Each structure stands twice: as structure tokens, then as C-alpha cells.
């Protein structure tokens, strides 16, 4: 049964190869991709069930026992993120045909899409630091393919910056792996953790330096202050479905990597590293929210809202207690779903109103009530109003913060939640309310088709909030498992 661990990576690769055979035949590719995605989602649900009932699944690549081979580790954290990824991807694949032009779809959209899913799942599953780099490259390559789809002037310009910043941080990642290798002589994460433990306390300084360097790499990918400047422009230019995938998945891979290495490997000098996270989390929240309030472009508002969410997740890692970690994981899951949903809704709104500019928009709710109310619920979920899922995550995070006596952090987090709500409600009040505007779309059925996949994501998000009772025990299990560390190390290295 160990081979289950490879399925989240290999299934989308196979699908991407199959759909690449008929690029021009959209009437084959579209239904095929939808069927693939639904089947894969079923498989992932089965694997999740399997992991939670029988314990974590570890696959040693090629039968080479760790630390010599590459380990794929499906533990409680990674499987839940893989499942969320597949949920979002399923919604996206139903959204794509209505949002993209035929021309864009024919330029191998579905191939890149499946490769992106494969890369993201691989990054979640792998237990090897160098392999993590490889999967980062897989997902980045796919994202380069997706970001240039459409070939617009601004799009190419912004993708150039996106590629350059990612290329630079990837090279830094390789360098950091080299540092780690020279220090401990291994790149398997469980093995690194074990060897780092045996380094005497007076030599731990170099470990912290490497930790910060690695944090820098992941912080670029995750868009943490002050390294978020590349994000807003490059996420706003592509098609909404591509933005949804990027916003929901790519930055989250970065923050997941921080999660993994700073709960497993670099845990000996939390006074330096994790305290740094708390400060950066505060600044990330503040600056992200200021960005969101500064613009009238509706898509840019959502894009800027990615940044404070990353701040919230980082805050839990910085607190490094059980409540904080539970809150972070919950918030990570919730944010992946709701960000994708909001991007999809904004795509529908732009089609409905025919403009991105909030100052020219009004009264959209009169023509499209479902879209309006879904967006309203989405805003409340994002801001963390009870009983929705954002509230549960924030409640845990704030409880964790108060346990540690981080009063300033609590205040900043609460204040930025309020400002997030303001930035979202601004769209609702000015875009949806008011006089019915001129120049609304003449094609309402397209807007309805775009709303349906978002409805699916919003309902999952509502379930995460209202049904927190059923989800929370699993999340608590993950956080105590992460704090424990020994289960991960011993299951990977038992061979």
C-alpha cells in the first residue's frame, strides 16, 4: 500500500501527457480533464481516509531506504494540503472553459494545469530537501507556462519579473542545500533533523544561519514582508483561473515549506528564528492590508489580500505552541479554499461588470444576486467573522498569541482583520450596491457558468467554519504531531 504515496504526483503527470496529445480538440480535452480531476479527487479522498485510519504512508523511492533514496512522505499535514489542492483544482477545471478564450485553452492550458498540480502535490509530499527544490521547479515551470498564456503586453512584462525573481531564489535554494549538505552530509529532511539534533549547542549558530537563509528562499516564494513586492503585479495580469491557482497554491507551497523545515529541522534556536517570524508576520499583515486598501482595481484588492493571510499563517509558526500551529494549519487550509473562491468570483464580477475599476462599477447585485451574496459571504469568511472558517483559524491563532503574552501581535492581527473586512466590503458596497450601472454584460449565462465552481468552494469553506467541530480534532492531531517530531523522523528512517 506504500505506493499510494506516489499517486498525487504521478496521476496529474499522466493526465497532462494524455491531454497534450490533442491540443486543438477542445471537445475532447475539456470533458477528459473534468473526468480526470473528479476521479483524482476521489482517489485523494480515499488516500486521506487511509492515512487517518492507518497512519502515515512513507514510500522509499526505488526501494532505496532512507537516507539514500528519495522518500515520499504522506503524513497528516501533507495529505490534508494535497486534498485541498485537488479540491481547488477541481473547481478550477470546471471554471476554465468559461473563463479562458479557446485560443488560450488550445495553447496547452490543461497540460500546464496538470503539471502545476503535480508539482504542488510533490512539494507537499517529498521528504527530501533537494527533491523539494526539484518540485518547486516543476511547479514554477508550469506556472511560467500559465502566466504567459494570452501573450498580452503587460502580461509578458510582469511574467519576466516573476520568472527572474523565482529563478534567483531557486539558485539561492540550491546554494542553501549545498550549505546543509556540507554541514550534515545528507539532504533527507528526517535525517537532517536527526543530525542537527546531535550538533553540540555551542555550534548551533551555523544551523541558525542556514535556517535564516532557507527562510529567505521560502519567504520569496511565500511573499513575506519585505519580499512580497513581486507578487501583486504578476498575480493580477493572468486570467482569473490562473490567478486563482497561483494565489491559492503557489504562495502556500512556500509557507508550507517554512512550516516543514521550521517545525522539523530548525527548532533549537526559536528565540532567534521564531521571534523573527512574529515580527515579520506583523509587518506582512500591515503592509498587505495597506496595499489592499490602496487600489480601485478589484482583482488587485484580492491579490493584495494574499499577503496578510500569509502573515497570519507565519504568526502561528512563530508562536510555535499547540494552539498557534493548529491555528496556522486551519488558516492555511481555509485560506487556500477561500482565496481560490474569491479569485473565481472576481473573474465572474469582471465579466459581469465589464470593467476592473471599482469606481466605474455599481449595482451588479441587481442583475446577479447569487454572485453578490456569494461574494458577501466570501468577504466575511476572509475577514474571519463567526461562524465562518476564518474565525476558527484566527481564534486559535489569537489564543496562541495570548498564551505567549504577545499583546502587540494580537492587536495588530485583530486590526488587520478589520481592515481586510473593510477592503472587501468596499468592493461589495461600491460594486454591488447602488444604481444599476450601464454596460453590464449582455451574456448573463456566462456569468452563471462562472459562479457555479465558486459556489462549490464557498460551500466547502462554510463547512470548514460551521462544521469545525468535525475538522478540528484532526487539525489538533496534526499540530501535536508536528511538535512531537519523533514520529516523522522514526517513520522515515525506520528502514
Amino acid at each position, binding site marked *: 500500500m506504500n505506493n499510494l504515496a506516489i499517486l498525487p504526483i504521478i496521476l496529474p503527470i499522466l493526465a497532462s501527457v494524455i491531454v497534450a496529445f490533442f491540443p486543438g480538440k477542445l471537445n475532447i480535452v475539456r470533458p477528459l480533464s473534468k473526468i480526470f480531476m473528479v476521479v483524482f479527487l476521489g482517489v485523494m479522498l480515499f488516500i486521506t481516509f487511509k492515512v487517518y485510519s492507518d497512519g502515515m504512508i512513507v514510500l522509499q523511492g526505488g526501494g532505496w531506504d532512507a537516507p539514500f533514496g528519495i522518500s515520499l512522505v504522506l503524513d497528516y499535514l501533507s495529505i490534508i494540503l494535497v486534498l485541498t489542492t485537488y479540491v481547488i483544482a477541481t473547481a478550477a477545471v470546471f471554471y476554465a472553459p468559461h473563463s479562458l478564450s479557446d485560443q488560450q485553452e488550445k495553447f496547452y492550458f490543461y497540460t500546464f494545469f496538470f503539471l502545476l498540480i503535480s508539482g504542488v502535490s510533490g512539494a507537499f509530499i517529498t521528504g527530501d530537501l*533537494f527533491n523539494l*527544490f*526539484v518540485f518547486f*521547479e516543476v511547479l*514554477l*515551470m508550469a506556472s*511560467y507556462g500559465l502566466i*504567459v498564456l494570452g*501573450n498580452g*503586453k*503587460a502580461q*509578458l*512584462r*510582469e*511574467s*519576466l519579473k516573476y*520568472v*527572474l525573481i523565482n*529563478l*534567483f531564489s*531557486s*539558485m*539561492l535554494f*540550491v*546554494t542553501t*542545500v*549545498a*550549505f546543509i*549538505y*556540507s554541514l550534515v552530509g545528507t*539532504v533527507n529532511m528526517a535525517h537532517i533533523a536527526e543530525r542537527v539534533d546531535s550538533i553540540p549547542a555551542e555550534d548551533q549558530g551555523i544551523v541558525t544561519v542556514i535556517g535564516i537563509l532557507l527562510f529567505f528562499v521560502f519567504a520569496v516564494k511565500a511573499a513575506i514582508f519585505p519580499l512580497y513586492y513581486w507578487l501583486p*503585479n504578476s498575480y493580477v495580469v493572468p486570467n482569473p483561473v490562473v490567478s486563482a491557482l497561483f494565489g491559492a497554491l503557489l504562495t502556500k507551497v512556500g509557507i508550507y515549506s517554512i512550516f516543514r523545515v521550521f517545525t522539523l529541522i530548525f527548532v533549537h534556536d526559536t528565540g532567534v528564528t521564531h521571534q523573527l517570524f512574529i515580527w515579520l508576520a506583523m509587518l506582512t499583515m500591515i503592509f498587505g492590508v495597506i496595499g489592499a486598501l490602496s487600489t480601485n482595481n478589484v482583482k488587485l484588492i484580492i491579490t493584495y489580500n494574499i499577503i496578510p493571510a500569509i502573515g497570519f499563517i507565519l504568526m502561528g509558526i512563530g508562536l510555535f505552541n499547540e494552539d498557534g500551529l493548529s491555528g496556522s494549519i486551519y488558516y492555511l487550509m481555509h485560506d487556500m479554499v477561500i482565496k481560490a473562491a474569491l479569485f473565481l468570483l472576481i473573474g465572474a464580477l469582471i465579466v459581469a461588470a465589464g470593467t476592473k475599476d471599482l469606481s466605474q462599477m455599481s449595482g451588479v447585485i441587481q442583475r446577479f444576486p447569487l454572485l453578490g451574496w456569494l461574494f458577501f459571504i466570501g468577504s466575511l469568511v476572509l475577514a474571519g467573522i463567526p461562524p465562518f472558517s476564518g474565525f476558527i483559524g484566527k481564534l486559535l491563532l489569537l489564543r496562541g498569541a495570548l498564551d505567549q503574552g504577545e499583546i502587540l501581535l494580537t492587536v495588530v492581527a485583530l486590526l488587520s482583520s478589520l481592515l481586510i473586512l473593510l477592503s472587501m466590503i468596499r468592493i461589495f458596497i461600491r460594486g454591488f450596491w447602488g444604481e444599476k450601472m450601464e454596460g453590464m454584460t449582455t451574456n448573463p449565462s456566462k456569468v452563471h457558468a462562472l459562479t457555479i465552481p465558486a459556489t462549490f468552494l464557498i460551500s466547502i469553506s462554510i463547512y470548514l467554519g460551521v462544521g469545525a467541530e468535525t475538522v478540528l480534532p484532526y487539525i489538533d492531531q496534526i499540530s501535536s504531531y508536528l511538535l512531537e517530531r519523533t514520529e516523522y523522523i522514526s517513520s522515515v528512517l525506520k528502514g
Partner: protein
Amino acid sequence: MEIIMIVLAAILFATGVYNILQKQLLRIVIGTVLISHGAHLFILTMGKLKRGAPPVEVYGVTEYADPLPQALILTSIVISFGVTSFLLVLAYRAYKLNQTDNMEKMRGSEHE
């Protein structure tokens, strides 16, 4: 030997960063290539350099070079090769569409 290699890698990094900070697009691409070369040399050095030793452990061989950095570099070279060729094409297309290869002029504006 390791010291020389590290200094060489440092020089590559420095020239790479210098080139990335230029305005001309092609120089930036060359800068990323130089940095990736520096990173690759660096990995090789970190595995300790040995001359005349095979990278495999066979019966009877006591001195062997570490095979892992070599495998890592190979992977990394292939990746940076692919990304660089993509980047060149992208830079060319961006230049064609925007009619400039000056990064200062590629800032973009609020109203697009």
C-alpha cells in the same frame, strides 16, 4: 583547492548580481546564468573535492568521491538550462511587444 573554488564561485555570484542589477534585459539573463554557475560550483565544492577517485563505492576501493553532489549538480544544471532558454524566449517576446529592453521603461502604469 576548495578555497580556490569557493573564491571562484564568489566571483561568479558577484558578477552575476552585478549583471542582474543592470537595466538591459540581456545582461540580466546573463547575470542569472552566472549565478547558477556559481551555485553549481558551490555544490561541487561542498561535497569535498578529490582527484582521481571514482564516484562509486565498489569492493576494494577505499578512496571514493562523493557521488551525491554530482547528482545534485546534474539535476540543477538541467533545470537552469531549461529555465534559461525559456527566459531568453520570454525576454525576446517582451522586447518585441513592449518595444524596449530597458527594465526602467518596463515598470508599467496604474491604468492598464
